[in-house]
């Protein structure tokens, strides 16, 4: 187990393209860190630099204080699970898991190898499959074999490169919890690359968001969701994605395409002398006014909207409301959309309403939101003007504390069951 | 990859080029040596001379060499052409149609290609003499098919299996007639594979020596490789080294040109059938 430190890490290709640009990141011992971003953001490259499969152009990567820049992968003692699992097709499951041990000739006795492999196999419930070849395993089983290979080595850290992207949706959910459970129990430092924000939000202690090789924000999932530093992070985290609307400052109000928001002093000071901002509002922060009591309605903004299409999903209901955007922010938003791998469809507002809402296609609905939930961004730089460092930090600290307790509980439970096993 | 290992791969690459070119460069160099210069004990000629080429193209050895060249080109082209046409029909059927005996077709052509050519020569020598095919073009074209046809069937089958045949149907749905679909879709798709197969088959026929030396006796049909073995020097007591070298260079030129033009396709053709199976 180890702490991993990246300091001003750069990866430049011979054509001058910087896949990773000046990334610094401290990963503590036992921490689960996610690298997330749209395709081509450099997250996999960064992971491969940590494990030693890519050269480091500039900067330093150290593991437990030792700079490993020039060390071969085999000397870094890390374990990696690849996207396609990279199982050795000619070896049985047992031999696949034993592979790293077999490489160190003479270090492990046959008995020791067997003991370790069987232990890993029982952790992963692979005991019955040890004699099979990888080709005869299901996707989830292959995934577990790949994890077994990582466990058996007692590596200093686990690295995962989009390990669930080849599984179907249901299995992906199962494997996600599996990975989380295993990491809590083993307490091994883990770096996990994904483009899937659900995985990012559910698995990580901290999530590092990358865009075009540049680190945007590193924070707990909750802080990322509530306090994104800029448009990119705000747009990337959350599903359905955050709505972005042009906001015009007009005297005491902030004029949005569909509604007007009274400007508080706090908001006014943050906006400064800008006349135009981009306003972010999460779909789940919009409510059907009909379903609210009068008191709640009172301290929020209500507006009427022509609902174009409704999607009823059982637990919630998505209402789509087209609106006219302004040319001066359209470019910024189109650019953002491209960065997020979006399709740049027509501008529309998405509202995630409660399932009890009776809004239907073509209705004129009365919608409500709490203006305190609004995020305001600078239209040029994309910076979050409403970013509150203090509460972001608090949110991070809470997550760390929660996480510490969860890990402790998991370890205690593991200890208890071991004691039971030995007592029996 | 670190700088040092890149340098090693460069050295390796250079070694490969040297390895492949060395004997070729040697025979070219030899062809440019004058007879008196042959025993200079050095790789390069003391003075470059074209007299060996004159000897085989216009001089006394031309009676041996030029007909042989004509025979080689003609016989190999005919044998390649027939093989590719027959193989194309066969490979199309194997790749696209479902019929009993596919495995037999592939198995038979594989078995034939593994066959020792010399074992066919023995009986053919006798039969050809009896029916008058000995020392004729036809007498070589027919046995050459035993070399070119199995290879063509295998290579073309491998190529044809890779072709997205549904394109043909797509073209017909798009309104093309059968003839148009064939001309505008199938020919461009299958063309490169057929051409590559033809080149490889031609190489094999061009390389033959056993049939050439066993089934011919005069310049009526004797191909170049066999003719090279019959070269004699300008005088009885002179080694024909220079003349052989010059002739070797000339028959190597078309091969090198084809390789330069089609290297990518040839590699695909040589390995596709073999490894994918």
């Amino acid at each position, binding site marked *: 187990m180890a702490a991993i430190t990246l300091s001003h890490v750069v990866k430049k290709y011979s054509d001058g393209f910087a896949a990773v640009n000046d990334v610094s990141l401290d990963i503590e011992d036992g921490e689960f860190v996610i690298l997330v971003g749209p395709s081509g953001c450099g997250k996999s490259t960064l992971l491969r630099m940590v494990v030693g499969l890519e050269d480091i152009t500039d900067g330093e990567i150290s593991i437990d204080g030792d700079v490993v820049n020039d060390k071969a992968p085999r000397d870094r003692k890390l374990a990696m699970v690849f996207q396609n699992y990279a199982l050795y097709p000619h070896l049985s499951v047992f031999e696949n898991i034993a592979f790293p041990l077999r490489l160190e000739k003479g270090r492990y006795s046959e008995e020791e190898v067997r003991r370790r492999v069987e232990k890993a196999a029982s952790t992963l419930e692979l005991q019955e499959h040890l004699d099979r070849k990888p080709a005869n395993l299901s996707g989830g089983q292959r995934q577990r074999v790949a994890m077994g290979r990582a466990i058996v080595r007692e590596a200093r850290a686990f690295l995962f490169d989009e390990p669930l992207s080849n599984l179907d949706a249901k299995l992906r959910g199962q494997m996600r919890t599996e990975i989380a459970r295993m990491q809590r129990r083993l307490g091994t430092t883990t770096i996990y690359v994904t483009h899937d924000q659900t995985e990012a939000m559910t698995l990580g202690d901290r999530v590092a968001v990358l865009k075009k090789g540049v680190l945007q924000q590193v924070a707990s999932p909750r802080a990322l969701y509530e306090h994104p530093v800029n448009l990119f992070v705000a747009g990337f985290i959350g599903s359905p994605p955050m709505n972005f609307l042009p906001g015009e400052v007009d005297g005491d109000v902030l004029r949005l395409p569909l509604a007007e928001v009274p400007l508080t002093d706090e908001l006014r000071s943050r906006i400064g002398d800008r006349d135009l901002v981009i306003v972010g509002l999460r779909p789940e922060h919009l409510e059907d006014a009909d379903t609210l009591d009068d008191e709640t309605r009172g301290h929020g903004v209500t507006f009427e909207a022509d609902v174009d299409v409704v999607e009823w999903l059982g637990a919630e209901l998505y209402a789509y409301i087209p609106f006219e955007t302004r040319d001066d922010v359209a470019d910024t938003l189109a650019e953002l959309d491209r960065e997020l791998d979006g399709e740049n469809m027509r501008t529309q507002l998405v509202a995630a309403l409660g399932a009890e809402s009776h809004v239907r296609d073509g209705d004129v609905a009365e919608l409500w939101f709490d203006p305190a939930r609004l995020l305001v961004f600078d239209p040029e730089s994309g910076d979050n003007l409403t970013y509150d460092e203090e509460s972001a930090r608090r949110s991070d600290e809470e997550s760390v504390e929660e996480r510490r307790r969860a890990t402790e509980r998991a370890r205690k439970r593991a200890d208890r069951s071991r004691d039971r096993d030995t007592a029996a | 990859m670190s700088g040092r290992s890149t340098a090693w791969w460069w050295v390796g690459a250079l070694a490969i080029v040297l390895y492949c070119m060395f004997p070729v460069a040697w025979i070219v160099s030899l062809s440019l040596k004058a007879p008196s210069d042959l025993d200079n004990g050095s790789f390069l000629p003391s003075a470059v001379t074209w007299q060996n080429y004159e000897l085989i193209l216009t001089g006394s050895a031309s009676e041996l060499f030029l007909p042989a060249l004509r025979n080689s080109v003609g016989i190999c082209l005919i044998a390649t052409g027939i093989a590719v046409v027959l193989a194309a029909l066969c490979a199309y059927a194997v790749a696209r149609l479902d019929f009993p005996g596919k495995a037999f077709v592939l198995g038979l052509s594989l078995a034939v290609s593994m066959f*020792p050519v010399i074992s066919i020569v023995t009986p053919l020598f006798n039969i050809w003499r009896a029916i008058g095919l000995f020392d004729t073009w036809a007498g070589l074209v027919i046995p050459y098919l035993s070399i070119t046809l199995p290879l063509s069937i295998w290579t073309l089958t491998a190529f044809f299996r890779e072709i997205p045949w549904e394109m043909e149907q797509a073209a017909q749905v798009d309104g093309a007639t059968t003839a148009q679909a064939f001309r505008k879709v199938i020919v461009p798709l299958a063309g490169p594979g057929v051409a590559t197969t033809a080149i490889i088959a031609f190489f094999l026929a061009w390389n033959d020596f056993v049939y050439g030396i066993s089934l011919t006796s005069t310049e009526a049909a004797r191909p170049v490789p066999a003719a090279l073995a019959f070269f004699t020097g300008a005088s009885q007591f002179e080694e024909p080294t220079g003349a052989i070298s010059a002739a070797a260079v000339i028959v190597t030129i078309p091969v090198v040109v084809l390789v330069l033009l089609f290297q990518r396709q040839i590699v695909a053709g040589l390995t596709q059938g*073999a490894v994918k199976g």
Partner: protein
Amino acid sequence: MSATTSTAPPPQRAPRTPHRSDRARQEARLGMMLCAPAILVLLAVVGYPILQAVWDSLFSYKLTNPDARSFVGLGNFVLVLSDSIWWQALGVTVLITVVTVAVELVLGFALALVMNNALSTLRPALRTAILIPYAIITVVSAFAFRFMFDLTSGFMNLWLPFVPEDLDWFGSFGTSMAVVALSEIWKTTPFISLLLLSGLAQVPGELQEAAKVDGATWWQRMRRVTIPNMKAAIMVALLFRTLDAFRIFDNIFIMTNGAAGTESVAFLAYRQTIQRLEIGIGSAVSVLLTIAVALIAVMFVKGFKVNLAGSTRAGR
């Protein structure tokens, strides 16, 4: 050149009712019709002569004296198999086959590795270079090597250290065989290396990386990951080259003409039939050679199937 039918995955067919539909029957008829010309030609060109050879081998038959043709049963075979010339030729053939194929496999693997790792800018040049020995006429390469080692025109004795200047390479068995093998190796290694290269290309790069992370050295990755995963390509290359080397004729004809005990089986068959016109004995040698080649092929394919099933089905 291609793999055995056993390497092909069995065609996926829907379970068929005993009654073929009209359409299926038509398709089958068309398929057989399209294949018929090629198959008939192959049978005529190879099948008929080989039967004729088997027939001829049962007679004492000399072209110089055709009237004295008489049936001797297996007499020719007894004659051949009890003669030391046959065993000498077989020994030479086996020796050349084993030596050249072994060297070619190692050398070809090295070439394939270099090509696989060479920068992509170098690759076309390498591919062109490597095809040249493959495409050059065997007779030409044989002459090139013969002249290289020749006492008059050669330069090798001057270039090579520890070699007396007047060494006649073609004067004794060992040195002649060395030059013959050298020429054979030069000419056919590229073919092997191309097959191995395409085998190498089929080993996923991710496996290499995984092994690196798992702590494997270069040599361990080669031995434990790369080579086991390209067994199929190696076996195909071995099979083709072994059968090919077993038929060696051109090099020996040009370089030694069978002198110094370097006669191979194919050369023996040629000399008996074409030079001595001993059709009966020559046919017997041809038949024996065919049997030997078939035995090698069967041996390979038998051992082969097992390996293939293991390595191809275990894809990701």
